[in-house]
């Protein structure tokens, strides 16, 4: 059933799609970055996102820190957590087959989920409200929360910063070298461990920013809150071409828009919204196995 849609309803849905898609994009960038450099799908990414939400919740609601202090602490703590996870769970497996790393990542994901359940209880906590960001502005029948505009701006800003880091800085050059050829990079005197740690720190920092914006828009914090966004953003990263930062943003936006527009045009199918993500994934992989912006993989013999 297609509802005879007015222009304002359609525009409203586009705004909904833009803010949801940009959130996906933000988290997908972190996913794709770690993959691009290490060829590792960091399944714990969604749970790092969840931990960031708890850091922010504790900062504001329990320790009563001002929001800007909390945000900085949250991002720093999450970066530390990401680098720490790499140090404990991935570095010892550096020489092991990629499958071991992948399984280690799944293990870290379960560990974080259960740790959070144990430490913070399984009950949802209310994330503090940011009226400046959430009080809607009404423009001719449209309702726009400032946060819905801030999210895409932040996402594009961080994408630009990240591209700058990767393409223009020394660390970025080292990252690219590691991603092209790990062993040669090592021979060239690149400090592999530092490069990989900073990759994880940056990726986790992006997850933290994503978590902060996510919680402003959807203000509840739960130990399992990272599972679905983690999965969706992984899909977004794959759609865009995993390993490619611009691809992750594109994938996130495609996913966000298609979810919302499916709800808009086929209201009776809204329960299958999560399935849409997977259907899009399958279709795109059938025609573009490397994703939309992904590079062709050349197997070296």
């Amino acid at each position, binding site marked *: 059933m297609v509802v005879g849609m007015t222009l304002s309803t359609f525009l*409203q849905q586009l705004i909904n799609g833009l803010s949801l898609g940009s959130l996906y994009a933000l988290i997908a960038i972190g996913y794709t970055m770690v993959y691009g450099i290490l060829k590792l799908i960091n399944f714990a990414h969604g749970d790092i996102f969840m931990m960031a939400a708890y850091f922010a919740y504790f900062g504001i609601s329990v320790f009563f820190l001002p929001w800007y202090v909390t945000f900085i602490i949250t991002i720093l703590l999450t970066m530390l957590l990401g680098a720490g996870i790499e140090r404990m769970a991935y570095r010892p497996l550096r020489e092991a087959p990629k499958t071991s790393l992948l399984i280690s990542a799944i293990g870290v994901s379960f560990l974080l989920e259960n740790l959070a359940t144990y430490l913070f209880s*399984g*009950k*949802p906590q209310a994330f503090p409200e940011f009226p400046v960001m959430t009080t809607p502005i009404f423009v001719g029948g449209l309702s726009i929360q400032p946060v819905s505009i801030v999210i895409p701006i932040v996402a594009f800003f961080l994408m630009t910063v990240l591209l700058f880091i990767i393409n223009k800085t020394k660390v970025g050059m080292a990252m690219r070298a590691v991603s092209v050829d790990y062993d040669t990079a090592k021979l060239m005197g690149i400090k592999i461990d530092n490069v990989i740690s900073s990759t994880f720190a940056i990726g986790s920092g992006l997850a933290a920013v994503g978590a902060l914006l996510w919680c402003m828009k959807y203000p*509840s914090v*739960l130990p*399992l809150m990272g599972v679905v966004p983690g999965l969706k953003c992984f899909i977004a990263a794959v759609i865009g071409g995993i390993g490619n930062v611009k691809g992750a943003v594109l994938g996130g936006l495609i996913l966000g828009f298609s979810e919302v527009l499916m*709800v808009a045009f086929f209201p009776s199918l809204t329960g299958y919204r999560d399935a849409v993500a997977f259907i899009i994934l399958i279709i795109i992989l059938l025609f573009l196995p490397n994703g939309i912006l992904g590079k062709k993989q050349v197997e070296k013999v």
Partner: protein
Amino acid sequence: MKKSLSLLLCLALVATMTAGCSGSSTSSDNSDVIKVGVFEPLTGANASGGELELEGVQLANQLHPEVLGKKVELVVADNKSDKAEATTAAARLIEKDKVSAILGSWGSSLSMAAGDIVKSNKIPAIALSATNPQVTLGNDYYFRVCFLDPFQGTVMANYAYKTLGAKKVAIVQEVSNDYSVGLAKFFTDSFTKLSGDASAIVSTGNYNTGDQDFNGILTNIKATNPDVIFAPGNYTESALLIKQARALGITCPIIGGDTWETNEFITVGGADVEGAVMSTFFDDTNPPTEAGKTFVAEYKKLYPDRQNIPAVTALGYDGYMMLMDAIQRAGSADPQAIRDALATTTNFEGATGVITINANGDAEKNSAIVKVVKDGKFTYLDTVTITQ
């Protein structure tokens, strides 16, 4: 150094595993103890509901720790708000812990997931606040102490039609949750009958458990301009849904069912859930029975800081007390004897009202409490009695 560390870790692992085993094997075959399983979601999306029911069971257990001269031991199993886990948790209670009866679970879907297991193992179970008819239907071993969704749907349809004067209703349901889908359907049936208008439901939106973004559904609903939105579902999702509805400029009343009455509904929803109306089982300011007054007094003694008593806690209390009554009458802790005694429960005075178990294993209840969120508290609005 590295080797000794890994050795240490291995040792710790073995130690915890054996500790786990020894803990479980000691207390079986102890005839001085009657084991009662409490089967609740204590983690995951429904954790708050499970905890509230558990508190009621534990309060009753503290007040009445013995039956037939034996100590009653509560064995708590977490079903993790997950249907697959629920089956495992129920099986573990029966096979490993050898419980005589089971109380729970919060959430019809979770209770239904355990239905086949209690039935095939012939262990009686009492659902506390699971309102979907399917929980007890065709299952001689599942009983319940609360009212059912056909009744609850009628109560809310009456409220929407008569009190709010609504003509057009939008429905949002949690499509992966049997409780929500069932209640939405009973509401729809009842409302279309009351209004005589087959197209009174102008829009239906579906979402999945755990969803956080409802803007798409709500934008569709806003376009149909309903007089009221009926949105039965889990408390966290519902609170986020109401927040997003208000942010989109939807101003009509939003009403729901018994699952909303948890503290988290208000903490997550904040000012936006003010005015949300729901049907529930119990009003602590006006307990219907003497047992209810005792329950309220004891609850306030135990938790002096709490502002109001959630209805599901009272049902947890009732479930335990009704089970004790059945064990007393059965004169034994044999599961089959307890089942038979439960099936013949008549005029048992519970905190939430007088309970008589009918042929389906359901409590025959014909009145519900309607509450509204006012100044951040669940406040009594009305008592609705419907004679069928």
